[in-house]
């Protein structure tokens, strides 16, 4: 199977101010097919934002380890020369950040901000104007002219998020990485933006890496789901399987900790939720045993002593847990 993006044993570690090393990503491997939507599920401290940035080789200054490979169309981005990287970033792979109001220049018209991206990648003259118009027409149904002439503060949160998406797709990338792109939006706007991503995949055949902490957001549109916990892939498989019958205790507990479906609420009303105890505060201790062991409702003796291995349950569904090691 041809994959457009393949990550092999990616490891990223940071050095904290106190001098400790903290592993943000600890041996991540997965692949993404053309036009596929991969949902990355993880809570704070799981390494999901580090993963988003690493896919474009954007590392923080305090990074001490960055090993493994990020293969984009066969080229390893972690080894690529700066000018090669320049041609790929923002053009072939784009990144959309969480907060649209911070990512946009406050005193520059949004139209110019989209043009700037195209210009930086060598689009000039007539083609520049035409392409900018096309991009706006892809994302806005009406008033494209007025919106292009607006400043960020004159637009709504949803419109600003669409501008960021416009910048990201301007050069016709084949992979889009979106890190919590709907976190700061209203529920109705959130649904609208999810719809935008879905239609982009249909129209442009984009592959999407969609990062979030909310499993319910992935339900309507992800093809596959990768569950991150403490910098490790704990479960990876087809979205429907992972959401309907999760196998890893963390994914299972996460599903059970959400309030019940609205239709059923009358029966469960004001009863306690099945919360996962503890929290995922990153620890700098060297790993010994399963990282989820302290919070795991299904822990066994072996979980403390050594790390589990990834077990393949069925085609394309893998779990990182001792419970399945014999299978």
């Amino acid at each position, binding site marked *: 199977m041809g994959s457009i993006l393949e990550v092999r044993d990616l490891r990223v570690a940071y050095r904290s101010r106190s001098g400790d090393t903290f592993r943000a990503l600890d041996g991540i491997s997965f692949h993404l097919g053309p036009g596929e939507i991969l949902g990355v599920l993880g809570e704070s401290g799981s390494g999901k934002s580090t993963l988003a940035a690493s896919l474009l080789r954007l590392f923080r200054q305090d990074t001490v380890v960055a090993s493994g490979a990020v293969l984009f169309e066969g080229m390893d981005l972690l080894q690529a020369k700066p000018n090669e990287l320049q041609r790929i970033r923002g053009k072939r792979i784009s990144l959309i950040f969480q907060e649209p109001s911070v990512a946009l220049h406050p005193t520059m018209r949004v139209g110019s901000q989209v043009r700037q991206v195209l210009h930086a990648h060598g689009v000039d003259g007539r083609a520049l104007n035409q392409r900018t118009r096309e991009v706006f027409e892809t994302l806005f149904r009406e008033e494209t002219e007025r919106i292009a002439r607006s400043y960020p503060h004159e637009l709504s949160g949803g419109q600003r998020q669409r501008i960021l998406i416009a910048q990201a797709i301007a050069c016709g990338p084949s992979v889009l990485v979106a890190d919590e792109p709907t976190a700061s939006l209203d529920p109705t706007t959130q649904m609208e933006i999810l719809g935008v991503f879905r239609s982009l995949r249909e129209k442009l055949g984009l592959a999407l890496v969609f990062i979030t902490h909310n499993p319910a957001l992935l339900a309507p549109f992800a093809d596959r789901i990768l569950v991150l916990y403490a910098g490790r892939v704990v479960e990876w498989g087809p979205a429907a399987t992972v959401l309907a019958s999760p196998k890893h205790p963390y994914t299972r507990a996460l599903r059970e900790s959400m309030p019940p479906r609205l239709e059923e609420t009358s029966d469960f009303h004001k009863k306690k939720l099945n*919360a996962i105890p503890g929290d995922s505060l990153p620890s700098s201790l060297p790993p010994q045993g399963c990282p989820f062991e302290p919070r795991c409702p299904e822990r066994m003796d072996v979980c403390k002593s050594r790390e589990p291995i990834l077990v393949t349950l069925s085609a394309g569904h893998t779990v990182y847990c001792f419970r399945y090691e014999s299978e």
Partner: protein
Amino acid sequence: MNATASQEEMKPLLKVENLLKSYTNRTLTGHREEVRALHGVSFSLLQGTTLALVGESGSGKSTLALCLACLEKPNSGDIWFEGTDVVKLEEEKRRTIRRQIQLIFQDPANSFNPGWTVLEILTEPLQLQRNLSCDEMRLRAHLLLEQVGLSAELGEKLSSELSGGQRQRLAIARALTLEPKLLILDEALSALDCSVQAQIVNLLLELQSSLGMAYLFISHDLAMAAYLADEIAVMSRGEIVEQGASVKILKQPQTKVTRELLAAVPRINFSPREASKA
């Protein structure tokens, strides 16, 4: 529905009548523009119960919270708290009422002094409001930590060293220092991870049944609101457009606003059949 039985004889803890609040915006050309944030809001809240205020951003939820916590003065209308009209009260007397209404925000990181330890954060309100000795204050602070499920060892840590969930627990503990009767939770769960949200929800339910506080739960998450609240009020453009028992709002929404909010709740709806197909 723990309120319905005795609803008749119970007096509301909080009663809001016809609240109006508008802000004046000055545009670049010097033109004055009136923005109506609250436009005739009325509701009441019984002791020990939860009312959820749900709506899009800009619907006036947070302005309402600020007015109730006496941090904003409404243009007109009344806020009755245990039978006293808070709006018309002198500043001096209002302060005693303010203590009983505590507010918790979305991002607890912004509501603490980053240079203070957990214990300092918890003892400050006690210093201001009570005549307690140092030892008594420390004891009280430790009890509060225990009440919200934080270990006593965290007392010496800075708030910036805590995780998001721990910080929200600390915010709740600080709100409890003055034994309030009403807790206003303004998007208090929105910044937390799903697994931590459930913990905080459980803590809130526990505290309500042991302390009998009333909650005003402000959120755009209708699913969580329905779960936590006895009643839901849906706000849009500064008005309450629909109000009723949570179950009723969910099952028979009457207005377009509510139906839209319901449709926007993300949910996992895979049947086993779909799963096996994939």
